C-alpha cells in the first residue's frame, strides 16, 4: 500500500537541496563568549564607544539569564563557549558591481537561486546580501537614496546614521529581553538597517538573504526597520544554509518601528538546513522579532513561511501602542523528519480600537512536531480592541504532532477576542482523487499543501509567493507512487 507512510518515508529521504559549502577564506574569531570577544568584534568593526558599551550591557544580561524551560520539547545543551562569534569573508573589499565579487560566492548564490542578478533587479528587488556576517553587495541603493530611503547593512548605519541607530536600537527588543536577545545584543555580527522617511512609500520590495556558511559560527543578525510617519515599506528576508553536521545556533533580533500612519510588512521565507532524517545536524533558529505600532493608525504585518531548521523557536510580535493600530501575523510552518517548530505570535493591545489578526497554518510530516503558541493581551486602556485568531494544523501521516497553546489575557471587557482552531489530515482519499484526474502523488501533495496554506501565501509579495510555493512543494516532495 503506497499510503501515507510511504509518502512520508519518501519525504524523509528527500535530501536537503541546498546542502553545499562555499570554499572562501574566512576571518574567524577564536571561540568563546567573554568581554574580550565582544571587544574584538567591536574593534573589528571600528564601532563607536556607545555601541561597545551597549554590547557589554548585553553580555551582562546574558550572564544573568537562564535558558527557557517552558517549551514542550527537549532543548539540546548549547555550549556558548564553543561557538565562534565573528566570521567575515577575508577579502574585505567593497564592490560597485557584481563582476568584482568572488565568482565562487556568486556561484553559490546562483545555486540558491538568489535573485542578485539582472532579472530580479528588473523585477524591482533591491538585494542586500549578508554572507555570514558582512554584507558584500548592495544594489539599487542610488534609487532609494533619491527618496531619502536608507537601506544598508547595520554596520554602515552605525557609521553613517548613528543618531537613528542610537535612538532605536534595543527600543523594541531590549538587551535584557531574553537570553538569546541578550546574546545577540552582545555579539551581533551585522544585519540590515532600513529607514523610510515621512510620507514616503518605498517603491520596491526590500530584500535580504542571510546565509550561514562557516562551521561552528553562530549567526547573530540584527535588523532594525523604522517607518517614519505616513510611510510604507515591504521587506523580505529569505535564507538557506549549506549542509553541516554540527548544529549551528542562530539567534537573530528584528526590531520594527512604525510611527503614526506608517505601515511595515515583513515577510520571511526560512529554509535553513533542517538536519538529516535522523535529526542529526541542522540549525537552531531562536529568533526574537518584535514590532511596535508606536503612532496612531499604524500597521505591522508579519508573514512567515518556515520550512527549515532543526528547531525553530520564534514569536514575531506586535505592540499595538497607538490608537487604531493593526497587527497581523500570517504563518506557515512545516516540520518533517525530526524537526521541531514552536512558533506563534504575541499581540499586545495597548491603544484604543487596536486590531490584530492571526492566521497560523502548521504542517507536520514524518515525526515533525509543530506547536502554535500565541498570546493575545488586552490592556486596561485598550477599549474596543479586537483579535481574530485562526490556527490550523495539517498532519501527514500518524507519527507527527500538532499542538496549540493559545493564551488570552484581557483586562478590558469591551474587547472581543475570537479563536478558531482545526486539525486535519492529508488523506489517501484526497491523493487518490487527484491521481484519478491524472495528477501524480507528488504534485497532489503539493496542490493540497499550497491550497491549505493559500491564505498565508497570498500575503507574500507576488514573486516570493511563487518561490514559497515551490519551496513548500520541494520540502514535502516525495509521494512518487
Amino acid at each position, binding site marked *: *500500500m*503506497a*499510503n501515507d507512510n510511504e509518502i512520508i518515508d519518501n519525504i524523509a529521504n528527500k535530501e536537503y537541496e541546498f546542502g553545499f559549502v562555499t570554499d572562501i577564506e574566512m576571518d574567524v574569531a577564536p571561540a568563546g563568549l567573554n568581554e574580550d570577544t565582544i571587544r574584538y568584534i567591536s574593534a573589528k568593526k571600528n564601532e563607536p564607544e556607545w555601541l561597545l558599551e551597549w554590547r557589554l550591557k548585553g553580555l551582562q544580561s546574558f550572564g544573568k539569564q537562564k535558558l527557557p524551560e517552558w517549551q514542550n520539547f527537549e532543548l539540546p545543551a548549547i555550549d556558548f563557549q564553543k561557538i565562534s562569534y565573528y566570521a567575515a569573508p577575508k577579502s574585505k573589499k567593497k564592490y560597485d558591481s557584481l563582476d568584482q565579487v568572488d565568482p565562487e560566492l556568486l556561484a553559490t548564490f546562483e545555486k540558491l537561486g538568489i535573485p542578485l542578478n539582472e532579472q530580479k533587479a528588473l523585477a524591482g528587488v533591491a538585494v542586500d546580501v549578508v554572507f555570514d556576517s558582512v554584507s558584500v553587495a548592495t544594489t539599487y541603493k542610488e534609487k532609494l537614496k533619491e527618496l531619502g530611503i536608507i537601506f544598508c547593512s547595520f554596520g554602515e548605519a552605525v557609521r553613517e546614521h548613528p543618531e537613528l541607530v542610537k535612538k532605536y536600537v534595543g527600543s523594541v527588543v531590549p538587551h535584557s529581553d531574553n537570553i538569546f536577545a541578550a546574546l545577540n545584543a552582545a555579539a551581533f555580527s551585522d544585519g540590515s538597517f532600513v529607514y523610510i522617511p515621512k510620507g514616503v512609500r518605498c517603491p520596491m520590495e526590500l530584500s535580504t538573504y542571510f546565509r550561514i556558511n562557516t562551521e561552528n559560527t553562530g549567526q547573530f543578525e540584527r535588523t532594525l526597520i523604522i517607518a517614519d510617519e505616513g510611510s510604507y515599506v515591504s521587506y523580505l528576508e529569505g535564507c538557506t544554509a549549506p549542509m553541516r553536521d554540527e548544529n549551528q545556533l542562530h539567534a537573530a533580533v528584528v526590531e520594527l518601528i512604525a510611527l503614526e500612519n506608517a505601515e511595515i510588512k515583513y515577510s520571511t521565507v526560512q529554509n535553513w538546513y533542517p538536519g538529516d532524517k535522523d535529526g542529526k545536524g541542522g540549525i537552531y533558529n531562536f529568533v526574537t522579532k518584535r514590532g511596535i505600532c508606536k503612532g496612531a493608525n499604524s500597521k505591522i504585518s508579519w508573514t512567515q513561511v518556515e520550512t527549515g531548521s532543526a528547531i525553530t523557536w520564534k514569536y514575531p510580535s506586535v505592540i499595538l501602542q497607538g490608537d487604531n493600530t493593526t497587527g497581523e501575523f500570517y504563518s506557515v510552518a512545516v516540520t518533517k523528519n525530526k524537526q521541531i517548530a514552536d512558533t506563534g505570535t504575541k499581540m499586545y493591545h495597548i491603544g484604543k480600537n487596536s486590531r490584530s489578526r492571526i492566521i497560523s497554518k502548521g504542517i507536520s510530516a514524518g515525526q515533525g512536531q509543530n506547536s502554535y503558541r500565541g498570546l493575545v493581551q488586552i490592556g486596561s486602556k485598550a477599549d474596543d480592541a479586537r483579535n481574530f485568531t485562526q490556527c490550523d494544523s495539517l498532519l501527514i501521516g500518524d507519527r507527527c504532532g500538532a499542538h496549540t497553546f493559545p493564551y488570552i489575557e484581557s483586562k478590558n471587557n469591551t474587547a472581543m477576542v475570537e479563536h478558531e482552531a482545526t486539525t*486535519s489530515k492529508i*488523506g*489517501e*482519499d*484526497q491523493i*487518490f*482523487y*487527484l*491521481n*484519478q*484526474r*491524472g*495528477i*501524480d*502523488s507528488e*504534485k497532489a501533495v503539493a*496542490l*493540497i499543501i*499550497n*491550497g*491549505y*496554506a*493559500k*491564505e498565508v501565501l497570498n500575503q507574500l509579495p507576488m514573486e516570493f509567493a511563487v518561490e514559497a510555493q515551490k519551496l513548500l512543494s520541494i520540502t514535502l516532495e516525495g509521494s512518487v*507512487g
Partner: protein
Amino acid sequence: MLIIKNLHAQVEGKQILKGLNLTVNAGEVHAIMGPNGAGKSSLASVLAGRENYEVTEGEVIFEGKDLLEMNPETRAREGVFLAFQYPIEIPGVSNINFLKTALGEIRAYRNLPALDAKEFLQLSREKQKLVEFDAKLVNRSLNEGFSGGEKKRNEIFQLAMLEPSLSILDETDSGLDIDALRIVSKGVNKLRSEKNAFIIITHYQRLLEYIVPDFVHVLYDGRIVKSGTKELALELEEKGYDWLKEKESATV
C-alpha cells in the same frame, strides 16, 4: 476498448469481486445495477487503481494495454475517468486550477502542447455551457462546501473537460434533483460519441430513460449474473433482485 476477464479482487482480506467478466466497446453505454454491497463501487475502484484493492486473479485490458499494470494517474492519462460516488473535498485548491493541472498532465502524457490561459478559459466556458455548470462553482475550492448535487455535477464538468475515452459514473444520479438529473443526462448524451464509452452504475431505472444504455448488467456478489438490454432495467425496477439471488444460489 475494455475487456475484463475473470476478475477477482479483495479489500482488507475480504473477497469482493469473484470472477467478473465484462467487455465494453467504443461507442457503447453499459449500465451496471445491483444490490447494495454487491461490489459495483469496488469494480470502479479496481479499474481506477485504488491502492487498497488487491487483484488476486484475472485481467483487465484497456485499449490493448494491461490496465492493472498502471498506476492510478497513468490510467487517468490513458483515458479512464471515474465520477466518484462520494467526491472528495480539497480546501484551498481552486476547482479551475486543479482542472488546469489535471488537463496539463493529461495533455503532456499524450504529447499535446499545454493550453495557454486563454485557450483553457475558452475550453472551460464551452464545457460549462455544455453541462450547464454554475460559473460560480468553477472558482471555488474543489468541492469544499459544495452541496451533494453540486459535487456530482462537478464530476460531470470535470469529465467534460478531460474528455476521457472510458467514463465510469458511480451513482452520479443519486443526490441530483429532477432538473439536475435531466441536465446531467443531457450533458452525458452530448459527450457520447463513437470513440468513447460509458459505464453507468445506478440504482434507478429513471436515469436510464435519459441516458439510454446499450446493455444493462446485474452485478451480484462480485459477479455479473445477468446481462440484457434496457428492458432488463425495467424488469429489475418491477421485481427487485430477489429472483436473481435465488437463481444464483440455485446454480451454486
